[in-house]
């Protein structure tokens, strides 16, 4: 873990859920934290460079910015990387994770979903067309898991700094 001081932590704690949307946001943040606008900007640049922050900017709602769907496919381990590459090449893919932990006794091989990805498109029609095209290319059926209800969307969660530091 990168070495983070108190200011870094306060920046993350205070602003992971939202920046002040005012004319000089970094000056406003500095005022709250008791540091200068320049210090805020330099810290944010450093945190971004160190990849502690993935970015400082907007997080779009995929459901509002177009259509998106979580999907999974079960493929034999030997084919996994090739299938993953085919998925990554297809249009509209923004996440693709290999996941393990589903395999268990009594679960048919074809139901051990080990590749999980999010397909996006400009609308539902294009989304379904992309999913069908991908299914045909892969030769495997996709498990389609649309969001029915969001109880908690990704707004971050409180970072447990003390726990992260504990041995």
């Amino acid at each position, binding site marked *: *873990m990168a070495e983070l001081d108190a200011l870094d932590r306060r920046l*993350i704690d205070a*602003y*992971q*859920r*939202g920046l002040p*949307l*005012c*004319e*000089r946001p*970094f000056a406003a943040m500095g005022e709250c934290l008791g540091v200068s606008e320049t210090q805020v*900007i330099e810290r*944010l*640049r450093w*945190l*971004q460079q160190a990849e*502690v*922050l*993935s*970015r*400082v*900017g*907007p*997080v*779009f*709602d995929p459901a*509002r*910015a*177009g259509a998106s769907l979580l999907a999974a496919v079960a493929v034999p381990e030997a084919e996994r990387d090739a299938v993953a590459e085919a998925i*990554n090449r297809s*249009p509209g893919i*923004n*996440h*693709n*994770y*290999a*996941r*393990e*932990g589903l395999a*268990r006794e009594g679960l048919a091989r074809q*139901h051990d*979903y080990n*590749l*999980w990805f999010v397909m*996006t498109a*400009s*609308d539902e029609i294009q989304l379904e067309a992309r999913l069908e095209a991908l299914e045909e290319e892969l030769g495997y059926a996709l*498990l389609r*898991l649309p969001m*029915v*209800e*969001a*109880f*908690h*969307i*990704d707004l*971050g*969660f*409180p970072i447990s700094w003390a726990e*992260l530091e504990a041995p």
Partner: protein
Amino acid sequence: MSVSTCPSEPQADDTSANGLDAIDRAIVLATQAGLPLVPDPWGAVGKPLGLAGNEVLARMRRMQANGMTRRIAAVPNHYRLGYVANGMTVWDVDDAHIERLGREVAAIPGVSHCYRRPRHLPEWPYNLFVMLHGRTREEVERQAEALRERFGDACRDHRILYSSRILKKTGLRLARRLGSPR
């Protein structure tokens, strides 16, 4: 934010189904990888687009107000912070209790997402997805065990799926031209 504050450039009429006009889309494309870290980020975004900083800010505010953006924030990379174990936990929860339990679980620290999704029986009985983050798999397992206790009899089965490899992660990106094939 009143719509009347928007200038009526001809290209601004090209509003797509998701409510973004051409200027909004240009702003999205210019900011989705991150804001410029300068004293006047809105002016810096607007300059190459021929927009004043206050116009960019007004549109960012409107996209926030109408839910297009969930937040405009310092987005942490949890993996880099030390949360190297992320478990996608999937639960087969009694439909009669999922509303209440979903809301309760969403309030627990360490939970970043909590979504209801459809079952696909018989092969996929899980209807609640809860993303857990910890330093180790043991930590994630403890969190999952606490959830299991909370769900009690309303939960028939659950699994923890760990990401063994991130094969692609870009965050949401709009295509250069919405609706056009890439």
